[in-house]
């Protein structure tokens, strides 16, 4: 979230699309309802009428996978009706920038941008560029009238997304589209705010990243980024997903969103040179120019501090990606099923149910030599070898199960969607032989290190040179009790030697006050620069519980701690005009008074933009302004509608380019049968989507083992419209079989008007929906909807497309 949960109450319009907050983030509704009570309008856009929709002022249905068309229509409506916030765009975005005249858009190139290479399925982005002067500063037209400026190109591109065209793609009635656009577009004035609450309904598509880009563009047009009640707000699906991402859960990043080194970045100097964004603009802060300090401090936290600058502080010990390697989720199991992976830790996860195309995942596990599952309960991954269609006699995978403690049984921090790192305490001791995860990790580290020491092996230093200072070490060098505070302090970082900064001496061993003090000479450590300031000489900031709210807009600056440097609303310098006066004086986030900023921690402490010697407001981007036009995306600088890989129609109504042209196709010539897909195929005529329910959590490993919760949602179901039910001779409560090209599940039919048939391209399209919280290890509940979902990922992140695919449904014989 750019903003945070409580801030939802500051919104005048709330769009819930690509998420189902009432069911999956019920606590958020405390703030949604608070906003509504003050007059805010709640818009619910979803293929299915949900518990969220039940509370909405306006519900609009759309066919799964058509969000860009829906939102593209909104961009068109906003521009056509002059609803955008010109002054905001001129100050804080690249709407005024002039684009390379050779740049071409999908309207001219049948769905493609200039530079597409069909053989490589990749773009040459050289035309996706700004016109720059001799000093490299982008040329602009402040009037935003130049036909080559970003706003005019945006207008031209989205002029193709008329309400009629959009309705014909999404299946949303035209009047509903216009109503949503009108209400949302009403916030393009100073003093009004709209927020978007989205989740996996947007990300898990082949165009997932572009779904969010489209919304980001809308928020920038309307001046809704940086303000209270605004922002682009991802509702995280687990209480600590934000924390795990911040601390490098994903393959392409190290802690603090530093890029993972590549194999040919063979020295620290090369890493810094290759990965540090550059700008020649003196008015751009280009905060990532501090990369060298953050990576160096990270290495100082990771590895033995006896390593010196000559050793690159241990840079060579970091794992590296091969050139062009993608090690995302889908690739992991693709390599596993091909026998390329020997061992696998499934730690706190259940891929046999959560992974898209779960049959492929389950087969892949049979190819492993060994697997360690670390979890609270037995689950479909741990017991895959005795699951449906498995013959244990033929499976050689050796499986270990390590029981671990639940969150209530351990102390530590969690970071919520609003980026608040909140300290939690142990409520009860772990049950039986289950251990704290840190205990398991400590044992693993110690034993693996001992094996390297006694037996040697390839590349031992990556383990033996790790710093591991999390408690008192016994005579054998082993820590008996991991001090979780020591971990938190290492994440914050220490001064490793006496250091004078801005006239003040910091002693060796002191905690670094904040990331502005981190150094690239090896004198500081920080396990995650973004969390530097979370645990400093004033104590554990994450454990704070003050309910003071000095601004009155619910920032609660002394409740827990928020990254970065306790800034509660990101990009908050865009919440003010050039003189530092808030667009909304009733709900100010920051304001310039008496020569300094008041309110939230400003996004860079420079003076207001009208004053000399300042820096632009979007400090993380090299050009210093928010990107309405972004060459960072793989499939185009503006979003374009492409159909899901599996869709119910023959052609993309927008162009001759049916699917996202740069997605990695798994099922091509010579591909695995298990990855087959079936688009516009009579065998699988119905659109399907998957979701969670309030009563269960993720794959249900915890909730299926909680009888009170299982009682409320006892087994697998499929929701469908009365019209489709009639066509198929299905009545409410019938047991059905839902099948796709990859698998099938049995499910109880819930026949409900909450699903309506869509009218798309003159034909009736039906959609069904299924939850993925069940699995065969719990008796009589059915199995996961992910047995049906395809092997295909987003064009930028490779997150699987589980939210739009094709199925058939029949009453069970």
């Amino acid at each position: 979230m750019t903003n945070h949960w409580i801030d939802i109450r500051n919104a005048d319009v709330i769009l819930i699309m690509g998420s189902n907050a009432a069911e999956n983030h019920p606590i958020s509704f405390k703030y949604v309802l608070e906003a509504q009570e003050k007059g805010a309008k709640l818009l619910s856009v979803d293929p299915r009428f949900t518990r969220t929709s039940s509370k909405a002022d306006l519900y609009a249905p759309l066919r799964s996978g058509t969000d860009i068309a829906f939102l593209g229509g909104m961009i068109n409506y906003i521009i056509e009706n002059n609803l955008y916030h010109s002054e905001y765009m001129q100050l804080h975005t690249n709407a005024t920038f002039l684009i390379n005249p050779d740049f071409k858009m999908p309207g001219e190139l049948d769905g493609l941008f200039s530079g597409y290479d069909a053989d490589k399925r990749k773009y040459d982005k050289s035309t996706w560029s700004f016109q720059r002067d001799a000093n490299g500063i982008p040329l602009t037209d402040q009037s935003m009238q130049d036909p080559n400026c970003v706003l005019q190109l945006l207008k031209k591109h989205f002029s193709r997304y008329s309400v009629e065209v959009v309705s014909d793609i999404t299946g949303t009635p035209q009047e509903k589209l216009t109503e949503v656009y009108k209400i949302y577009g009403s916030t393009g004035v100073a003093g009004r705010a709209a927020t978007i609450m989205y989740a996996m309904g947007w990300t898990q598509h082949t165009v997932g990243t572009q779904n969010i880009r489209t919304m980001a563009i809308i928020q920038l047009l309307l001046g809704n980024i940086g303000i209270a009640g605004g922002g682009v707000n991802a509702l995280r699906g687990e209480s600590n997903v934000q924390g795990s991402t911040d601390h490098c859960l994903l393959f392409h990043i190290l802690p603090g969103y530093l890029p993972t080194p590549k194999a040919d970045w063979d020295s620290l100097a090369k890493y810094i040179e290759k990965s540090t964004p550059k700008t020649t603009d003196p008015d751009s802060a280009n905060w990532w120019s501090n990369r060298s300090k953050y990576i160096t401090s990270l290495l100082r936290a990771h590895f033995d501090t006896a390593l010196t600058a000559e050793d690159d502080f241990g840079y060579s010990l970091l794992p590296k990606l091969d050139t062009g390697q993608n090690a995302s989720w889908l690739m992991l199991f693709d390599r596993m099923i091909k026998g390329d992976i020997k061992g696998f830790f499934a730690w706190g996860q259940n891929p046999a149910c959560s992974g898209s195309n779960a049959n492929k995942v389950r087969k892949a596990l049979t190819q492993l030599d060994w697997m360690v599952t670390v979890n609270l309960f037995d689950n479909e991954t741990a017991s895959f070898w005795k699951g449906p269609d498995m013959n244990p006699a033929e499976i050689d995978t050796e499986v270990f199960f390590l029981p671990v403690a639940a969150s209530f049984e351990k102390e530590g921090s969690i970071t919520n969607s609003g980026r608040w790192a909140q300290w939690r305490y142990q409520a009860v001791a772990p049950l039986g032989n289950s251990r704290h995860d840190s205990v398991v990790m400590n044992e693993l580290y110690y034993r693996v290190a001992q094996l390297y020491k006694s037996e040697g092996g390839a590349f031992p230093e990556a383990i033996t040179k790790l710093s591991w200072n999390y408690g008192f070490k016994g005579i054998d060098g082993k820590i008996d009790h991991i001090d979780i505070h020591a971990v938190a302090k290492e994440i914050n970082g220490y001064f490793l030697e006496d250091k004078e900064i801005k006239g003040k001496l910091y002693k060796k061993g002191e905690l670094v006050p904040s990331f502005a003090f981190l150094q690239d000479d090896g004198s500081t450590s920080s396990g995650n620069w973004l969390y530097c300031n979370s645990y400093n000489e004033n104590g554990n900031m994450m454990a704070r519980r003050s309910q003071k709210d000095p601004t009155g807009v619910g920032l609660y600056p002394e409740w827990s701690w928020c990254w970065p440097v306790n800034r509660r609303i990101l990009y908050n310098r865009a919440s003010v005009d050039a003189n530092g006066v808030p667009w909304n004086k009733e709900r100010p986030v920051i304001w310039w008074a008496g020569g300094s900023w008041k309110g939230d921690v400003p996004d860079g402490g420079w003076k207001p933009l009208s004053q000399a010697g300042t820096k632009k407001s979007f400090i993380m981007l090299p050009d210093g302004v928010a990107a309405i036009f972004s060459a960072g995306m793989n499939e185009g600088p503006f979003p374009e509608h492409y159909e899901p890989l599996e869709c119910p129609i023959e052609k993309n109504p927008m162009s001759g380019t049916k699917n996202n042209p740069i997605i990695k196709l798994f099922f091509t010539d010579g591909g695995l049968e298990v990855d087959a897909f079936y688009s516009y195929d009579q065998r699988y005529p119905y659109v399907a989507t998957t979701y969670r329910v309030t009563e269960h959590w993720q794959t249900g490993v915890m909730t299926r083992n909680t009888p009170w919760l299982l009682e409320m949602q006892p087994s697998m179901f499929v929701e469908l419209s009365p019209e489709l039910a009639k066509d198929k001779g299905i009545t409410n409560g019938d047991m059905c079989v839902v099948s796709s090209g990859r698998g099938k599940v049995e499910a109880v039919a819930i026949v409900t008007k909450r699903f309506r048939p869509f009218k798309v391209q003159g034909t009736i399209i039906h959609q069904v929906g299924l939850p993925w919280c069940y699995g065969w290890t719990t008796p009589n509940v059915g199995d996961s909807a992910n047995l049906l979902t395809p092997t295909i990922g987003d064009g930028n992140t490779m997150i699987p497309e589980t939210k739009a695919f094709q199925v058939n449904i029949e009453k069970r014989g």
Partner: protein
Amino acid sequence: MERKAFMIDTSRCIACRGCQVACKQWNKLSAESAVNSGSYENPPQLTSHLYNKIEFVETDENGEFKWLFLNKRCLHCSEAGCMKVCPSVGALYRTHDGLVGFNKEKCIGCNYCVNGCPFDIPRYDAQNKISKCHGCFDRVENGLQPACVKACPTGTLMFGDRNELITKAKGTGKEIYGETALNGLGVMYLLDNKPQDYNLAVNPTIPTSIFLWKDVIKPLGILGFWGSVGVAMLHYVTVGPKQLEEDVEEKGGNHE
């Protein structure tokens, strides 16, 4: 002491059913095996192990589709049909806070309260004893909120001084269901739709036969009742227990 009550604002309910679970947790009620029979509403009825539940109602009037949620439970009537009809003194009783409590030890399993209730609330457990929401009187008398109210994340469920709740609700301009019915219900609703849409009686009344029972027959018949209990005991001693499962199934059991 001032009468306490629940005010339930259905416009705030997102059917998360935290109330159902919190109630089970506090009252140590085990889960029952449930089967999805084409609805989110599981278990489908109140049972002896389910004191409150959310009813899910889909309405479609003039093309306007709605999904309504109602927290169903004992309404703690001022003029409580169950109490009027109960032949066993103290089995059903008025708590200090004005709620309708029960004492299983005094319940004789006659099932009369089931007929006396205009809202189809009382259920009988496997031991043939009364079960229903008692407003967490054990929590309330110790200054705590009922478990369901404590768990509710959206403020749908409110509990407190009845008059204060009414005054506050009137400030919102919404119509209150149950302010005066049966001399004032202990559970009042602020409804989004008409009471009928939630399967709530527009004018709940205790069956007139109950008045006849309470005011005429019960005083005369109570002696006779105990007489028949005596006969039943004799029957038990000589013949054996009557099989009551069928009745339990109908009134309180899970239809699945």
